[in-house]
């Protein structure tokens, strides 16, 4: 289940990246699409920023996935 959770979070992360990619220089969808969806994306934004913060620490990431405290 931990793996599924990670997978889900990763997909949420990708979703947020796709919609809001223009903020980090990715090719983005029409701006207004991002504006339309932005109000509902609180969780995705949180995941996005957390993933960005954790990206440097793969070991901790793996420990988290395997449930090692």
């Amino acid at each position, binding site marked *: 289940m931990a793996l599924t959770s990670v997978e889900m979070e990763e997909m949420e992360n990708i979703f947020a990246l796709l919609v809001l990619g*223009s903020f980090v220089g990715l090719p983005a969808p029409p701006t207004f699409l991002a504006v339309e969806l932005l109000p509902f994306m609180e969780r995705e934004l949180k995941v996005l920023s957390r993933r960005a913060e954790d990206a440097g620490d793969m070991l901790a990431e793996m420990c988290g996935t395997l449930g090692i405290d």
Partner: protein
Amino acid sequence: MKILFFTGKGGVGKSTIAAASAWQISGRARVLIQSLDPAHNLGDIFGVNLGNGKQKVSETLVLQEVDLQKLARDYLERETRVLGETYRYLQVLNLDNYFSILKYSPGIEEYALLTSIERTINEETDFDYIIFDTPPTGLTLRFLALPSVTITWIDRLILIREKILEKRYTIQKIRRPLKEGEVPREELLKYDSGEDAILRRLRCLRDNYNRLNGLLQGPECTVVLVFNPDMLSLRESQRLVEGLRELRLPLRLLVDNKVTDKNLGMAARVEKILESTAPGIPVERVPLSEGLYEGTEATLYRITKDMGSRF
């Protein structure tokens, strides 16, 4: 209800031809003519002073000029409000400042335009004809392309979203049910596709755009291309014809405007080339009017050609 778009390079006489057609059609049907061009001159043509409102020229003809910048501003304000309500805790940050930057982002103007057209089509059901006088080629092509481009994006995003919800469903089903009064240790995520706000919004947007696209590509819609007998106008018109074909928008009439005795030869050549670019589309030739007319009785530059009967 029929929808007409008058397109062409800047200065070829889109507004004039649109106004003349509107005037002619208004003899037999109810017509709304709306200018989307930031450089409005519909009011000048009919000799009336338009605010941002509508004005009746005759019993069957109504004029309207749309302020694009105001549209974009209104749209952003609406979104900012929703955003402010959802992200209350972010209000301490400088959100307003952020959105004032968004105003300059590419796409907002086209989107405001498209929204305006959509609203006009949906709301103005009292009219038999709605005539749009469009802004210059570049912007026109971009906003006409918007529905297709957006649908592609929305489709992909919906796919990803559905996958996410599937995963959430799996996770929820593995967890044991909550006991009465128990507070979940982590956030419970909605997995039902009807409850997910993002998926709902995406589907709603997709329906909207599919409908709009169907309308624009359908039998009720007509695109008229206005050009002049000169090289620049020919080249731009060719690009426009190709752009319209790619978007599968129904170009149904070419208007060769400002033809005089002197440029008759050029006019014939330009028409021939355009006819080969857009085979099967009829061409109307409109002579240049030399006189300067003023006031409401200008009878629209004395355009005698009855273009109205084409639609």
